[in-house]
């Protein structure tokens, strides 16, 4: 029978993790429980769901926003700070499954699974998030693309836990967007996801452009060439076309059960084009 460990606090969770690096880390179960009864049961589980210290939300002393890894989409949706400062994350949370999934799915779980269709991952990429990991030797912080290494592969060591996600202090002043394209509006697994953010200079030029994409490669990724063609430019129709062209070479979509590579490429271009046109409209 599976050895079930329910730590009472973070310190206990960290010692359990250090002692049992092979045990499954479980939060709300919305990924890991799918098909679990058809696989061999894990030797043990460290149950992190609802652990208080992982559910904090607020601002650190350095001004950065901190979201605990154990926060559910339901909690994120209900929070006024998330709505005001992280609207892209708010919007993404609303489209993760429906109430039942939103009540259990967590930020940390989405990161730990690191699926190419993890809904929050493009958002975290686009919002310059850093992932805070804690283990016996202390705390380390990684940008999202140094954490998500490949298909369902992360930089988490077998004695570490994902503790929190932090965002730049000025993130709420950057323009943010979230778009998810699936088969239908509700409950669908994505064909393409776009999250993006940018600051604006006084003359309207784009600064610190970030474009995060999901479901278009083995892992979520930043469209760095696209970011480069947009950086420092004032958005207009011509720039929208250039960005839409560029993004199609930034990505490596595949044919699979949910969509085709050429469709994903075309839609990604359109999503980027529309975002740049929106930015152009916003300054007119």
């Amino acid at each position, binding site marked *: *029978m*599976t050895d*079930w460990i*329910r730590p009472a606090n973070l310190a206990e969770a960290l010692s359990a993790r250090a002692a049992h690096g092979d045990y499954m880390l*479980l939060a*709300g*179960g*919305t990924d890991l*429980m*799918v*098909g*679990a*009864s058809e696989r061999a*049961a*894990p030797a043990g*589980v460290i*149950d992190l*769901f609802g652990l208080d210290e992982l559910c904090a939300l607020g601002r650190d002393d350095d001004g950065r926003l901190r979201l605990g890894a154990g926060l559910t989409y*339901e909690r994120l949706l209900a929070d006024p700070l998330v709505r005001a400062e992280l609207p892209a994350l708010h919007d993404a949370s609303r489209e993760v*499954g*429906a*109430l*039942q*999934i939103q*009540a*259990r799915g967590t930020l940390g779980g989405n990161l730990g699974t690191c699926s190419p269709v993890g809904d929050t991952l493009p958002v975290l990429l686009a919002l310059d998030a850093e992932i805070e990991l804690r283990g016996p030797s202390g705390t380390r912080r990684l940008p999202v693309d140094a954490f998500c290494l490949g298909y369902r592969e992360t930089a988490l060591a077998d004695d570490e836990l994902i503790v929190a996600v932090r965002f730049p202090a000025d993130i709420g002043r950057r323009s943010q967007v979230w*778009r998810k*394209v*699936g*088969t*239908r*509006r*509700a*409950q669908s697994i994505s064909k393409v996801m776009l999250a993006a953010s940018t600051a604006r200079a006084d003359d309207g030029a784009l600064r610190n452009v970030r474009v995060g994409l999901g479901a278009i490669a083995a892992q979520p990724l930043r469209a760095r060439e696209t970011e480069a063609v947009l950086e420092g430019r004032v958005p207009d129709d011509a720039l929208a076309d250039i960005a839409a062209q560029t993004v199609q070479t930034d990505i490596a979509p595949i044919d699979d059960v949910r969509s085709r590579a050429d469709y994903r490429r075309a*839609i990604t271009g*359109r*999503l980027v084009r529309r975002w740049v046109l929106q930015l152009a409209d916003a300054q007119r």
Partner: protein
Amino acid sequence: MKLRFQLNGAPTEVDVDPMRRSLDVLREDLTLTGSKEGCGEGECGACTVLIDGAPVNSCLVPVAQLGGHDVQTIEGLAQLGPDGEQLLDDVQRALVTHGGTQCGICTPGIALCASAALKREPAADRGRLRELLAGNLCRCTGYQLIIDALVTAAAERGRAAHEPSAPGGGADGSSAHDSTVRDPNAPPSGDRA
């Protein structure tokens, strides 16, 4: 593993493998077969139960995570009257009145999810109700009567004060084929892709 939790208001204890799905323990060990298995993947909502009042897919919750919590299944939604008769919840009554059911497999999940959602958002309008129920699939595709029933339940609670009134519409003030609301079951429209 020994677990204690509240089940439909009564203290309950089970001794089970912690990784078993809550759905299986409820159905097989506790003989509460009102919760159904549709997909087993968290997509369809037929296995919906309430944990501390929140709708969840019981096929994705390992039973160990019920420990210490308050669990409600469809069997606990109706109250018992003075003579031991079942007094249906108002959502259940509205589903009966409107015929908001076809084969019935999705009905327990829909009744529980809607009852919880209306508690949280008593002023939810037709469009919002559709969104709140997006995690409950009906394979008979009888959504219209289901949503009609929920709109009525909301109105009966005196909670639908914000429903727009439309001439020629139904009792709830909206037409039977309201195309202006965001319909989660519709294919994505052009403005999103």
